[in-house]
């Protein structure tokens, strides 16, 4: 399981697929999700296979999520903010 080395300090909350996720100021969405044990962020647009954050530096585009209704956002490049609604990027609902 993932852990935080420096104790607690999660001060903000957002939701991912309806689940409440605790994050710290400065966490990217992807980091907060991994810390919360969520490694699957999208379905491949080709096969529908599950994918998750891979590079964490904006290069691989595997961590695409829907943030507050806007699809295809890079979870590793956006900092988590209180009250965000984050959902997995589904293959057949791209830009629905």
């Amino acid at each position, binding site marked *: 399981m993932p852990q935080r080395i420096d104790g607690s300090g999660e001060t903000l909350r957002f939701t991912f697929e309806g689940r409440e996720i605790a994050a710290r100021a400065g966490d990217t969405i992807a980091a907060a999700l991994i810390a919360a044990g969520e490694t699957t962020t999208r379905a491949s*647009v080709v096969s529908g296979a599950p994918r998750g954050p891979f590079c964490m530096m904006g290069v691989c585009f595997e961590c695409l999520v829907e943030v507050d209704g*806007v*699809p*295809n956002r890079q979870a590793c490049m956006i900092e988590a903010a209180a009250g965000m609604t984050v959902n997995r990027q589904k293959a*057949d*609902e*791209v*830009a*629905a």
Partner: protein
Amino acid sequence: MQSDALVLGGGLVGAATAYGLAREGLSVTMLDEGDVAFRASRGNFGLVWVQSKGDGRPEYAIWTRRSADLWPSLDAMLKEETGVSTFYEKPGGLHFCLSEAEMESRKALIARLHNVHGAANYGARILDRDEVHQMMPGLGPDVVGGTYCEHDGHASPLYLLRALHDGLKRRGGRIVAGAGARDIARDGDGYAVTTPAGTFRAGRLVLAAGLGNRALGEKVGLDLKIAPLKGQILVTERTRPRLDMPTHVVRQTGEGSIMIGDSHEDVGFDVSSSSDVMAQLAARAIRMFPFLKDLRIVRSWAALRIMSPDGFPIYQQSKTHPGVFSVNCHSGVTLAGSHALALAPMIARGELGEELSAFSARRFDAAAN
């Protein structure tokens, strides 16, 4: 290396012709450029488009329509022989007008083309605002009308190119990459073509090297006044099915990407994508389809169309070098049907048909006189 026919150029024009020649039973070698060519095929928008083609040149309207009619057979052949789908569809196509002035000039064009094809045969009709919005949900309010033609369709230029290469190979054709033609010389009854990959010989040559044809033509007595016209295309990320049919500037591919095209720039041999033109394309596309604003552009590219002085193709056999044919045109997807199944048989016979006599480059000499 001896073949019945050498095709100089492995883009859509060369590959369709080469595939057609192989179908006619000729042994064919296709000489292609290297990996980075000024390949118009890669920049093709993917329309099989009839409705606006041939204004002022009825022979072109008829040739284009013939190609559209041949497309279903070509697609079926390629699929059967190679297993590659070109994603060809023929749901008809839409052209939009964003102002009354555009609408008026469009109406006049349609009327002129009606006279070429015959009203019953043309299959294009004018749509008023209500009709066009009904036919294509999601259109923006700026669209005041348009035209629809049942003979229009679209296909993936890239899969078409791959299928043609694959089909040629399966019919015993040879494809040599890194073999851009440098020189052409007489060789007995035939010709020898020098390339970085060696010298190739054949009795019949097809010049299909795009803009490279100009220099090659000079070696075989053909004066080909072709010039580049840059076009830029934007491609979005994939999205769910949005568009039931292709339109003249926006279409959805088989994979779900939306392609946005229709820039024309006369800029010489420059294939860079310029941000200002990209921005104009984006703005115009959003006026037509407001839903596009929420999609992301993942790629853009620019390619050079091959333009003759009047914009129509040049098909010509050299007088001084019999057996050398030259094919010069844009719209390599639209014309693939004709190139593979009508032009190639003519070249195999050694004579272009009467229907292509209007496409000789000599028409430009006449204009100059």
